[in-house]
């Protein structure tokens, strides 16, 4: 069953086309959504891709979160719709309050663009289908602000409720508890710094990104079934 995934483009987003291609290769119907749109239309999942939305001025994601489309994204999130924020998309989701915490400049003050190993910390979320906890994936990172921070209570809650999605192997950026990705309590909103859309072919050094994106498509299909059943 083919699902439809929307990919959001803000001014300054630059991973939108790679993400669309990667999802289309896996059999999804894809829709490019501009941040000025006020409705998502009929979608089964949303991806907020990487880049430098609004030039990352003020703070990463700080301006983007006030884009018209973000109200629709927030409603989709509260309805249980699968949403994934990759890199800058993760930063936008934290600024929007859809995920807890924030992302600060890397501890070494270097822009990091490198292959990265991550270990899955939980699978009860929209990127978990077909994966197992402790599984190691090779997914590249490409960021200056990937240093995840949150207060102690939030960290405790993330750990207790299985909301840490993945951790870095060999922390590259100073991230709290080696966190590379987290999800909300429902597990339908995930943010991660690594770029799955850049690990979709042996030519790119890894195909592990496909597994995460396939999991998203699976989650999108099952969420749609639930919604279809509800409205039938």
């Amino acid at each position: 069953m083919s699902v439809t995934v929307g990919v959001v483009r803000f001014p300054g987003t630059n991973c939108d086309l790679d993400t669309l291609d990667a999802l289309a290769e896996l059999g999804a119907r894809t829709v490019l959504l501009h941040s000025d749109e006020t409705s998502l239309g009929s979608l089964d999942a949303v991806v907020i891709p990487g880049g430098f939305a609004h030039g990352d001025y003020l703070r990463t994601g700080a301006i983007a979160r006030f884009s018209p489309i973000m109200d629709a994204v927030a409603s989709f999130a509260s309805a249980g719709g699968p949403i994934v924020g990759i890199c800058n998309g993760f930063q936008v989701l934290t600024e929007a309050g859809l995920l807890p915490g924030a992302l600060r400049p890397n501890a070494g003050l270097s822009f990091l663009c490198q292959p990265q190993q991550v270990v899955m910390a939980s699978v009860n979320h929209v990127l978990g289908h077909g994966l197992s906890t402790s599984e190691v994936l090779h997914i590249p990172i490409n960021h200056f602000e990937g240093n995840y921070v949150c207060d102690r209570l939030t960290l405790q809650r993330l750990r207790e409720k299985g909301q840490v999605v993945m951790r870095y192997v060999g922390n590259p950026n100073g991230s709290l508890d080696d966190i590379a990705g987290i999800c909300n309590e429902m597990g339908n909103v995930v943010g991660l710094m690594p770029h799955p859309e850049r690990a979709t072919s042996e030519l790119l050094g890894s195909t592990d990104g496909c597994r995460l994106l396939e999991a998203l498509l699976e989650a999108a299909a099952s969420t749609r079934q639930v919604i279809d059943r509800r409205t039938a």
Partner: protein
Amino acid sequence: MSRWDVLVEVSPRAEIADPAGTTIERALAALGFAGVGEVRVGKAIRMEVSAADAAEARSVTEQMCDRLLANPVIEDTRIELCAVAQEPIAPEPAAPEPSR
């Protein structure tokens, strides 16, 4: 209404690591500036705000901080207000003295 020069200082919260501040602190020490500590790097946002009085100017600026200028998860803000001096009514330029 009067106009206010507003300075908003946004800085990383005390418990948040500030790698830029740490790097500058090390560089200052390397240059021989002894006794420098607690270096923090933030940003300064200056603007002019029209408001009835200082209290209103401050309250509007606080709302800007809450909604956009700072992220309370990682940043603290400090606001400084200064009334913009009313432009004095410029005297008519004196006619140049006829040269003799």
